[in-house]
């Protein structure tokens, strides 16, 4: 909220400048978001005296006034206002002025007469709506006076960020002035003013007030006035509103706004002649309608609280009044509401109806239910003074009076929390300055503090310690090293694994990217991912950010496309949470590691796939996974793995461990490539991070180095095309048994439905050099088993 410096100064009695004040607030109370000069736009507007007035020679409705602006400065100004008269003091905008309404004044000829400025209406000066004639100033206004100064606009605005805890007291001038005075070390100036007691006429004409919903309407104070005259507010009142960013409307509305700014208490004025019978604070009926001041009609619910007469709902309690019972120019009798409503309910109502108002903002912040009585006194004084009306009655229904509460605070606790000793006298002084009553408990380092009801944020010892800490200044606390046991911290295996993986990948040439955790329906569709498996954001920023990612791949593919503009080939990875909707509807979240490779060359016979597979194998080895536990299987059997939808059906595989899929690898489905505008140069892999981590070998053991040399022989076998390398490797392991130490595929050749595989075979034993007879036998076993199992023949 932006506060007028002058008004704060007047109420608090501080002598500090605006800059000093904001520094004081920053250090001890609130964040100051800015200090600025009030932009009134009246730099070129001065008071002038109409010394003579003549008819315009060429226009019936215009007159030519000679206006004195200074001892030697008298100007001729053309004016069309009906209310201008000789001897008046008026506000003159001289050429060069840009008025708040945007009008730029220059010397112009009006029907042949040069006008050296403009005599302004109230509206043109930004003071309300009156445009019926020029604004006439009091006779004692000095000639040449700067209007900005005269109106009190020569002011500085201090923008203070009042956080929710202090919304109950500091979103008001008095509250902030009280705070400033406390920081300054004295009592606030406004508190010195004695208020007259309220005298309610014995005939009390105020309508009866009934609180039906005592949970949500904590207090309802109503004032009735008779014979009010609606009019314009005096200048001092208008200027205070304008400085606070509110538009003056009429004396009644202005009084309610002024008192809200001053005290924080929202007020609402009803035209009493539009009310019928008793006033009730009740829940709205289902479907009940109310036309608000804004002209909008709201359909209410049982959860809304309304103020009603015996016929209709009149106002949405604590949020906004209705148009039918509002104050108009014709209002003669007035009913003024000064009430207190439950903060949570007001918040729900304004959220439900999307109606944030100055009133709801304050009620949401838990206002003091004892405030209405004080405000009523001010209201009576102002309404009677400004409207000529008379108080004709008052009702005050306050079912459960809120009283001050006590907190006992030990000095030991203060020291323990702040980490510094604060002497008793200082504690007492700080709290007393804040207006809290402090009582020492005899012979103990303890005090009992009474909390005024305007400070609902002070509930326990810690709240008071904060008050002491900030009043003293946190800079007075010296850093102190903790005394802690030298205990080893528990290791986070997940985090450690994450770092090892990321570090390896960076060394292996992968760039780490981070993408959003959500994408749109279009992305899911392009990738062929099932929509129903996605969790959805209820209130997304845009439809493109509506689905929580099931995989990083839809966005990684998008990023691949973007990066291809700058780079020919690259490897990317992202590590992060992916989400899925479980059958129960509950969210599931796991960490997923996903890779994407773009190669310079297109994949012919799966080169892109095998490039990726090589990376995966090296990765597994570097992590010391139990690789023999992980099987690459063809994807058909794992339809439940959603990302398979974007993989090439015959160039992809699933990593399986103990029968469970723990990852995928593959080239991209041609359909998906097309949707993303990519070429077949892309392969991806993805892993369930936790599954990989659990496959890390717990212990690693050294294998003695081979003492006796291996003998290497090559073998080339021809199989039917359907036989896979994996099957042949399995066969080699079986048939080679103990003597075949290593094998390496060095050629694949396909022709006429047949496939020839050539391997280097390394035979050896740990305790001897093999004889050629032993080797021949092993070799023959392999050939025989291949022939038996796959009808393979030895190629020569």
């Amino acid at each position, binding site marked *: 909220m932006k506060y007028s410096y002058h008004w704060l100064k007047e109420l608090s009695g501080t002598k500090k400048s605006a800059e000093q004040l904001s520094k004081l607030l920053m250090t001890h109370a609130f964040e100051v978001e800015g200090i600025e000069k009030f932009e009134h736009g009246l730099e070129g507007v001065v008071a002038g005296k109409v010394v003579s007035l003549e008819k315009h020679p060429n226009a019936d409705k215009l007159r030519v006034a000679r206006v004195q602006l200074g001892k030697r400065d008298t100007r001729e100004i053309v004016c069309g206002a009906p209310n201008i008269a000789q001897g008046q003091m008026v506000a003159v905008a001289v050429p060069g002025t840009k008025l708040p309404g945007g009008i730029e004044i220059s010397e112009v000829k009006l029907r042949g007469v040069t006008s050296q400025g403009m005599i302004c209406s109230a509206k043109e000066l930004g003071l309300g709506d009156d445009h019926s004639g020029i604004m006439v100033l009091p006779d004692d206004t000095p000639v040449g006076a700067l209007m900005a100064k005269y109106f009190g606009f020569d002011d500085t605005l201090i923008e203070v960020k009042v956080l929710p805890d202090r919304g109950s007291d500091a979103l008001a001038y008095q509250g902030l002035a009280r705070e400033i005075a406390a920081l300054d070390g004295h009592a606030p100036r406004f508190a010195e003013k004695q208020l007259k007691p309220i005298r309610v006429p014995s005939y009390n004409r105020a309508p009866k007030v009934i609180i039906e919903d005592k949970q949500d309407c904590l207090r309802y104070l109503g004032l009735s006035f008779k014979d009010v005259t609606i009019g314009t507010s005096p200048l001092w009142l208008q200027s205070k509103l304008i400085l606070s960013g509110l538009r003056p409307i009429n004396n009644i509305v202005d009084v309610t706004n002024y008192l809200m700014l001053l005290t924080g208490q929202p007020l609402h004025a009803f035209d009493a002649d539009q009310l019928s019978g008793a006033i009730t604070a009740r829940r709205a009926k289902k479907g009940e309608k109310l036309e608000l001041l804004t002209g909008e009609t709201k359909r209410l619910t049982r959860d809304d609280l309304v103020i009603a007469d015996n016929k209709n709902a009149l106002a949405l309690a604590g949020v906004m009044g209705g148009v039918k019972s509002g104050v108009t120019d014709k209002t003669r009798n007035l009913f003024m509401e000064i009430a207190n409503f439950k903060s949570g309910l007001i918040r729900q109502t304004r959220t439900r109806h999307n109606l944030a108002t100055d009133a709801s903002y304050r009620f949401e912040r838990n206002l003091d239910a004892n405030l209405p009585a004080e405000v009523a006194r001010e209201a009576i004084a102002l309404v009677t003074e400004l409207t000529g009306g008379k108080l004709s009655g008052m009702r005050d229904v306050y079912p459960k009076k809120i009283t001050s509460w006590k907190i006992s605070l030990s000095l030991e606790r203060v020291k323990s929390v702040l980490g510094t000793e604060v002497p008793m006298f200082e504690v007492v002084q700080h709290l007393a300055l804040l207006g809290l009553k402090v009582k020492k408990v005899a012979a103990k380092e303890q005090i009992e503090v009474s909390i005024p009801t305007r400070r609902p944020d002070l509930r326990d010892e810690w709240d008071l310690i904060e008050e002491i800490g900030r009043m003293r200044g946190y800079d007075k606390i010296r850093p102190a090293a903790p005394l802690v046991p030298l205990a080893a911290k528990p290791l986070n295996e997940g985090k450690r694994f994450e770092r090892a993986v990321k570090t390896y990948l960076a060394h292996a040439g992968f760039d780490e990217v981070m993408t959003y955790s959500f994408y749109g329906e279009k992305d899911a569709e392009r990738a062929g991912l099932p929509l129903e498996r996605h969790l959805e954001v209820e209130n997304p920023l845009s439809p493109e950010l509506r689905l929580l990612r099931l995989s990083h791949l839809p966005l990684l593919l998008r*990023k691949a496309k973007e990066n291809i503009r700058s780079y020919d080939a690259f490897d990317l990875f992202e590590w992060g949470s992916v989400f899925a909707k479980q059958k129960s509807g509950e969210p599931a979240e796991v960490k997923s590691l996903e890779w994407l490779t773009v190669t310079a060359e297109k994949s012919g016979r799966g080169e892109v796939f095998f490039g990726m597979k090589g990376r995966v194998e090296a990765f597994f080895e570097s992590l010391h996974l139990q690789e023999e536990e992980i099987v690459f299987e063809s994807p058909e059997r794992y339809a439940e793995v959603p990302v398979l939808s974007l993989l090439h059906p015959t160039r992809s595989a699933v990593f399986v461990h103990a029968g469970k899929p723990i990852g995928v690898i593959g080239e991209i489905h041609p359909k998906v490539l097309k949707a993303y505008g990519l070429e077949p140069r892309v392969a991806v892999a993805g892993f369930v991070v936790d599954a990989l981590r659990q496959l890390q070998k717990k212990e690693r053991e050294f294998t003695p180095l081979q003492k006796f040399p291996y003998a290497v022989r090559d073998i080339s076998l021809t199989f039917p095309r359907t036989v896979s390398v994996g099957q042949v490797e399995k066969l080699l392991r079986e048939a080679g048994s103990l003597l075949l130490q290593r094998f390496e595929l060095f050629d694949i050749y396909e022709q006429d439905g047949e496939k020839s595989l050539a391997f280097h075979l390394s035979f050896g034993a740990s305790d001897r050099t093999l004889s050629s007879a032993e080797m021949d036998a092993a070799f023959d076993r392999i050939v025989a088993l291949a022939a038996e199992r796959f009808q393979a023949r030895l190629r020569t």
Partner: protein
Amino acid sequence: MLQEKIQALYAEGKKGLETVKTKAELEVWEVKYLGRKSELNEILKGLKDLSAEEKRAIGPLANRTKQDLLRDFEKMKQDLLEKSIDWEREAIDVTAPGVFMRRGHLHPITQLEHQIEDIFTSMGFAVADGPEVESEWYNFDALNVPADHPARDMQDTFWLKAGGAKTKAKKTDEKSERFLLRTHTSPVQIRYMETHKPPLRIVVPGRIFRNEATDASHEHTFHQFECLMVDEPGKVSVATFKYVAEMFFTQFFGEKTHIRLRPSYFPFTEPSFEFDINCLLCKGHGCPTCKQSGWLELGGAGMVHQNVFEAAGYKRGEYQGFAWGFGLTRMAMMKYKISDIRLLMSGDLRFIRQF
């Protein structure tokens, strides 16, 4: 007699070596002075026939002389090899580029996260983490931000659509069933305290979400760091927080850093503060980065609210601790002078490859 002969042999050999110009000449020399039939070798072979006294005198001398000649020979061999190479033909342009070897790059956020984790773990803090999809209870209620409290407006939230029956939105009792994308890393405080007893010290890095429109300085997705230390009353205080924070920033920036606390409000701490560090760019004199104030606003902190301890299952007043959080994204932007926050989540390799 024999001694003189050996010395003469050495002198002669050495002199002869100096005249050697080619590999062939060197081979001739080798045969003559070091070969099996060389004079020196003959002497060495004849040692066994000498008297004990002569052996003592001649043996070491003959051996040493052979070693010396051998050494000179090896040196000459090296010299000749070196002279035989055409260095001009061997020459390459060493300023031409090396064979390209791709290296990868960790995201700047990750690099910073590692750096920060290392500092904290060296101070005895454990690294904790938690889910990004959170329940309303962990993200708000347990952190003393009840529904219908204006403090909820301090963090714009992405809510998840209720699964299955939409009406199952909220349980009024106990743990709320609505899900959201966590708006801060603080829910991990509760999760960790539920399963651990003080004394405890943790840091929590993580991705968080705010329902805010993006521009050069606002993102709906960013990274945060959370720090929590809890112990018995008297063992951890505001003064401790100041110490740990100063220690951390001093380590992080590599120079003495001071922190300044200003009063603030967070529902989950009491007292609460904003904390600033002295601007290291201008040394506190005022510059555009610190908006001429000499201080940089870095995050929020405070003493853990007793309601939060209660929500985590601790008894009110039994423990005390501080919690603080700061934007990892903001620190990365400061550190690398990144002017547009959106680059961090852009996946643009022209950006990533700079780190």
